[in-house]
């Protein structure tokens, strides 16, 4: 039997930067690329068919079967969201459940599934060993916030893997990213960064490009299993703050993190999710040896370089880009044009030769 090659690929959660980058990278390698999300995509892609679909509704399962895709890249997983725990649960757990329903059973044509998870699944605490490895996760562990949602989500995936042997599932636990706009990036680039008094934990970061690369690699190749993906090495929070040009102010009391989060929200305007608050207190570092051996690839940016990239991005000049609504209209136009051409070729098979 020849090795499986993805032909019809669906990318969920395609509308943010990460989804757009993944779709752009996948487009030349697959025959048909579909993308779905609730919001309009941030950048247009001619090769992709965009569908307005909400993974939180069971319609997405029917969509997967109707499109008869053979590979699903599930990126509609919210990690960095300080607000609305209810909504995060709906998107992460219920959304993943609906996607898995679409992939499950022998009636489904899906042969490969890639799920984006997060380093947040490990949480962070003083009792943890210095490195988190993939097998450390205990689904019965009591947790809160995003950590709990991630645990529930991965439990669903692991149950899916047991029941569906025909489908290879890859779970990527992506490290924390400091791209422009993430909570961690906003926190670290404050002019005066309040840190927990008496703590200077290690941070492990992942550059956006490496996140995209790992997702693309696990989509195009067969790599079933759970993998930690993050940059090499660590940096200390104090280093990260200094790289961003700020001053670390060790003023937050180490006990009662909710108080510190409240203070950060009201005084500094940074909404830090609970799992990130414990990360900046105790640090969280993953052991990525398994992913490096499996993919025979190593993230090109180390944690330090990922931080430097954010600092450099700050200095760079912003180029005036067309606003997203225009791009969306452009994309709709292109899609309509493609459909029209296809219909023309169907009616007059010789039309495209002229």
């Amino acid at each position, binding site marked *: 039997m020849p090795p499986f090659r993805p032909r019809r690929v669906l990318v969920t959660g395609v509308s943010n930067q990460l989804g757009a980058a993944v779709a752009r990278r996948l487009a030349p390698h697959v025959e048909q690329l579909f993308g779905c999300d609730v919001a309009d995509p941030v950048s247009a892609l001619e090769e992709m068919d965009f569908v307005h679909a909400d993974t939180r509704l069971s319609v997405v399962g029917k969509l997967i079967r109707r499109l008869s895709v053979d590979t699903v890249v599930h990126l509609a997983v919210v990690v960095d969201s300080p607000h609305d725990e209810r909504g995060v649960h709906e998107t992460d757990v219920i959304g993943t459940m609906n996607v898995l329903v679409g992939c499950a059973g022998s009636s489904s044509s899906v042969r490969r599934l890639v799920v984006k998870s997060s380093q947040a699944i490990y949480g962070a*605490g*003083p*009792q*943890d*060993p*210095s*490195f988190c*490895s993939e097998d450390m996760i205990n689904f019965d562990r009591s947790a809160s916030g995003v950590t709990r949602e991630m645990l529930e989500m991965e439990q669903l995936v692991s149950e899916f893997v047991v029941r569906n042997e025909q489908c290879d599932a890859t779970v990527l636990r992506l490290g924390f990213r400091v791209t422009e706009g993430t909570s961690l990036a906003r926190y670290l680039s404050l002019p005066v960064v309040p840190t*927990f*008094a*008496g*703590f*200077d*934990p*290690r941070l492990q970061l992942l550059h956006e490009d490496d996140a995209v690369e790992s997702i693309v690699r696990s989509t195009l190749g067969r790599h079933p299993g759970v993998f930690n993906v993050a940059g090499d*090495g*660590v*940096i*200390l929070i*104090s*280093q*990260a703050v*200094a*790289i961003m040009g700020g001053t670390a102010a060790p003023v937050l009391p*180490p006990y009662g993190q909710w108080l510190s989060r409240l203070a950060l929200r009201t005084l500094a305007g940074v909404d830090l999710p609970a799992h990130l608050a414990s990360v900046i207190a*105790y*640090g969280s*570092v993953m*052991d990525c040896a398994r992913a490096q051996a499996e993919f025979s690839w190593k993230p090109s940016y180390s944690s*330090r370089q990922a931080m430097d990239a954010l600092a450099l991005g*700050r200095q760079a*000049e*912003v180029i005036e880009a067309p606003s997203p609504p225009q791009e969306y209209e452009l994309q709709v136009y292109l899609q309509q044009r493609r459909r029209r051409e296809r219909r023309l070729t169907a009616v007059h098979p010789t039309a495209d030769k002229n």
Partner: protein
Amino acid sequence: MIAPSTRALRRRNSQAAEIVAPSPGLRLPKPVRRLQRRAPMYALQGLSRLSSALRELTGHEVIDLNRIMEVAQFAYQQRQLASRGPNYVVDDFGFDPQWTESFISLFKSLYRDYWRVETSGVENVPASGRALLVANHAGVLPWDGTMIKTAVFTEHPHPRHVRALVASQFMGMPVMSWFLRRSGQAVGHPDDTRRLLERDELVLVFPEGTRGTGKGFRQRYRLRRFGRGGFVATAIRARAPIIPVSVVGSEEIYPMVADLRPLARLFGLPYFPLTPFWPWLGPLGMIPLPSKWRLQFHPAVEVSHLPAKAADDQHLVMALADEVRDTIQQGIYDNLKLRRGVFL
């Protein structure tokens, strides 16, 4: 947030920009500033004159200038370290070797002058490659670990950093977690031990844990239970020789008469000690007593001939753990005999 910037705006700004000198109002007069700059030098010169005068008067060294220079060197090194900014590398465990070495000059004076540590058998520590140092644990604060680190770094022909394993509850304490991590310590978890040994590090473990440090003064030099022998299993899996270390003198630095359990529970500490000085004298009570110390590194217990599955043989593991424990206990008795008195 990115400030709005157009080409015209940038041009206007660049033309309007001018170099502004710092306001002269805040500067001290020039002679005062010169004095500020040269004050350390003048202080050292004065001290050296005083030291030579005292040497001529009394006939022996009253103020040792070398020791004072070591402290000055520490202050200088701290300034050097501060000038690195964020441009330094810590290893995956958060260890900053340069920073740690700056502290060793400070610990060296404690090692040599305060506790007058006599070290034997340091040649049993390998110059390279992995090894697991196993020591007895005593004294309320882990000064014994500090002294073992200092001994290996200063007395060994190939100075090496010892990476100690600490109880995870210290990693949750403010200042402690920062200092311990940055000076190379890791959490006392089998995973951490394995990873450190796989990187060919010198790992120090106290199998007694807080049972050893938190025991009363009456119980001094009586070893507690050596955990569950986990350190032996880890050493067998990593094929690292076990080097038993006996520490004598650490028991007397804080003679602990009682342990206030309820207070310890309130502060989340493993124990709350009462000594003749703590907490009655406040922070002064935290100054350790100048007992006489002896350190002995014993010949290594080789485990490399054992297969990896020997680590699952509970009988063998416990036998080896007992052997190591007996070596340490015997070393303690030997060194107690060699010591003339507690403070001599």
